[in-house]
């Protein structure tokens, strides 16, 4: 036992629990605008994650209870549940979660040693493998449905015992629709479609604001720092203003910021500390990189949303960023740069 002899502040489990708590407003918003699919997804993902984690820990001969209690598997699963399309069939989420836990986390040596954001690895795996399921299973806002599906019906659709999901319930995301249809139409005409609602995209703006709120709470609790969210959102907005300032040609900036998984990414995914850059300055670069990549893939790529790819690509650059963004240490006239010589 050495110094220090006292210890304060929350434990890692507590940190993870706060992260879970901070996603709740967003989850509630998702459920209230888009139905039970999100809740079912989240619970299903968590269940799969905990079982998978326990199995792997047993295989690796690690104390199961001790490591399960770090809650990290729960957070990974939760993020996947929030990010996957709500009507995605159960096996899609299962594959996503298992890849996240087994491949992205444990094959890299377990919590803390993973290079890539586990949730996003899981997401990318299913996005590449099942592009159709991942594009068409987004929920139509409940407001627009005459008879929204109830909990049991949704459960039935996801687990396939109630037949396929009726077409009315599902569709593409507003981001996807805008991007594809703006080529043929003017912004004003396009915006008349009910999915865009009165502000940005029906329901999505509130969902994003709810995640924003949860994220600010985490910053206030000092569980995350402001660097990644701010540089990420700023660079995304900047890219959008630079390359897509005309709403008749491209997705407008407010939609980039408030539709899709933007705020979830800004405060909960990109900030995953394990796979993010280390120093404060490094985090600024890292966040900015995600913003730029996210815009590029959203604007010019074929995928409806690009959070997963943007984050994973920046994960690659982390070691490099870390070597070049060391803070200047006390007593040194300038920071050290690059690899040890």
């Amino acid at each position, binding site marked *: *036992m*050495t*110094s*220090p*002899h*006292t*210890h*304060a*502040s*929350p*434990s*890692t*489990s*507590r*940190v993870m629990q706060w992260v879970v708590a901070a996603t709740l407003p967003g989850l509630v918003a998702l459920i209230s605008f888009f139905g039970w699919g999100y809740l079912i997804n989240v619970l299903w993902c968590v269940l799969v994650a905990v079982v998978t984690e326990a199995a792997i820990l047993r295989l690796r001969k690690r104390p199961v209870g*001790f490591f399960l209690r*770090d809650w*990290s598997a729960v957070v990974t699963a939760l993020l996947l549940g929030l990010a996957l399309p709500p009507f995605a069939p159960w096996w899609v989420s299962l594959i996503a979660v298992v890849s996240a836990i087994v491949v992205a986390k444990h094959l890299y040596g*377990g*919590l*803390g*040693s993973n290079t890539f954001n586990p949730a996003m690895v899981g997401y990318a795996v299913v996005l590449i493998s099942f592009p159709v399921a991942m594009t068409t299973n987004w929920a139509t806002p409940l407001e627009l449905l005459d008879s929204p599906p109830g909990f049991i019906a949704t459960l039935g659709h996801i687990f396939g015992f109630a037949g396929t999901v009726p077409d009315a319930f599902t569709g593409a995301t507003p981001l996807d629709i805008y991007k594809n249809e703006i080529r043929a139409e003017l912004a004003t005409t396009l915006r008349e479609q009910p999915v865009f609602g009165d502000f940005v995209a029906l329901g999505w703006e509130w969902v994003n604001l709810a995640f924003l709120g949860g994220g600010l709470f985490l910053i206030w609790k*000092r*569980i995350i*720092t402001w660097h990644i969210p701010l540089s990420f959102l700023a660079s995304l907005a900047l890219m959008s203003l630079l390359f897509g300032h005309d709403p008749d040609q491209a997705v407008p900036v407010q939609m980039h910021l408030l539709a899709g998984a933007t705020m979830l990414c800004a405060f909960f995914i990109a900030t995953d*500390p*394990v796979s*993010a850059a*280390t*120093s*404060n300055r490094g985090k600024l670069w890292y966040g900015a990189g995600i913003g730029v990549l996210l815009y590029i893939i959203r604007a010019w790529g074929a995928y409806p949303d690009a959070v997963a790819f943007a984050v994973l690509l920046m994960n690659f650059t982390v070691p490099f960023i*870390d070597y070049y963004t*060391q*803070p*200047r*240490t*006390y*007593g*040194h*006239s300038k920071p*050290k740069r690059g*690899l*040890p010589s």
Partner: protein
Amino acid sequence: MREVFDFPGGIHPPENKRRSLGEPIRQIPLPEQLIVPLHQHIGEPAEAHVKDGQHVLKGQVLASSGEALSVPVHAPTSGTVRAIAPHAVPHPSGLKDWCVIIEPDGKDQWQELAPCADPDTLTARDLLRRIRNAGIAGLGGAGFPTGFKLQASEKQKIQTLILNGAECEPYITADQSLMQERPGEIVSGLELIARILDPEECLIGIEDNKPEAIAALQEAVKDTRIEVVVVPTKYPSGGEKQLIRLLTGKEVPHNGIPADIGVTCQNVGTAAAVYRAIVHGEPLISRITTLAGGALTREGNVEALIGTPIRHLLAEAGYAPQRAARLIMGGPMMGFNLPSKDVPLVKTSNCIIAGTEKEFPPPPPAQACIRCGMCEQVCPMELLPQQLYWFSRSREYDKAEQFNLFDCIECGACAYVCPSSIPLVQYYQHTKGDIRRQREEQEKSDRARIRFEQRQARLEREKEEKEARRRARAEAAERKRREQEKAQQDANGAVPAPAASGPDLETLTERCDKAREKVESFRQRLSEAREQTPEAVPKLERALEKNEQRLKAAEEALAEAQENQNQAQGETQ
């Protein structure tokens, strides 16, 4: 008001200071035995001058050293030396070290002291000598010999002399009680130190959680040029580097010392000890220490003799062993666990904590580092503790150094906030130790390699020189032969040169060269031996002498032969 700067990071652990400030400083009665370690400071240990069974007086020198970086050790009371032997000492390693064990005679009889009522009459040199002879070593915790530090600072111009009264560690109030009760001693001590260093400004840095001490000092510095500077409470503001930044905005350069930027820093307790040493002539034989923790019924500050067993101090403070879970010397942030209660109080012991299980619960098992960066946000040295941890764990020592591991002051702020309860400081200490060892080995093998290369180069050079000389000789001989032939032809039937008696010139030159080479090589070997194998020196010296004589003889023979020849040639012509 003076501008107070800030340092990045830092933490606010619960202070727990009030509990030991209830009573004024108490005196601890004489223990049955005093255990005085010979090595209580940074630097060379002192050597014992007393013998078993010898009677000593209070203040008598027990041990000293001729080294500059060392301080003497004095008898804390009068009594009989019972042993000079290894004994458990307060050190994190738990190792034993040499101690003088004294049985007090109860008379507490001082040896004759040399007080100085008017220190203004003393020169800076006298002041320094008195400080050194009084055995003063930094009372703040590190124990750096004060005289040495002041002397080193004297060489560089000191602008700012700082007294460190921040005392930022939780629980510890030894300096605070001293500042409250004896501010005059501190201020006088500071003025004496200022006489030595002649700084432009004298500051006392103190955290704003000690209003009584601030008031007392402010009262005491009236009519002096000393300024009491109040800094915000934040751990580790009492770290030397942090306090310097707080008060001056300057930073001690990497690998440098405060004097490099014209600053020197002393602890308030050290200043008081300087005052007592110079004005009263008393060596450092006692100190104020805080006894705190839930396992004590009478927490507080005590003045105790150096060498008092911790067991004795604890008994005086109402120690309840059944409640004690941990015994710490120093503060809860940077202190270390005491292996036993038999270790003595030393010059650097500012606090002893007997904590209960509730105060110091055993640390939860470490979880994985999630790179949350909380450690980074609190590091006062602006390091990346999580990177240092990862590199320490994976033994990538070059990377750890690249990330400035050696600038870590081991303050423990990072480990304090780490949500995964990773013992970060332990990792850093371990890695630093490993790197130091590696460096030493590297240095050793480098030295050996350089020696080998030098030797190799020397042999090479000698060979070449020899070759060159041989060639030169051959040419000279050739030339001479031709000249002689020519002369003979010129002389046309003149008397042939007399055959040289004894060895001819060439052999003589060769002998001479050989002897010279030998002398050279012996000289070289001798100088090498002086550095590495002193036992071989006399033998080599003798050999060298003999060879020098031989060389001289050879040279004489050669000169003679040359003369003969010249004469012969002269005659021939």
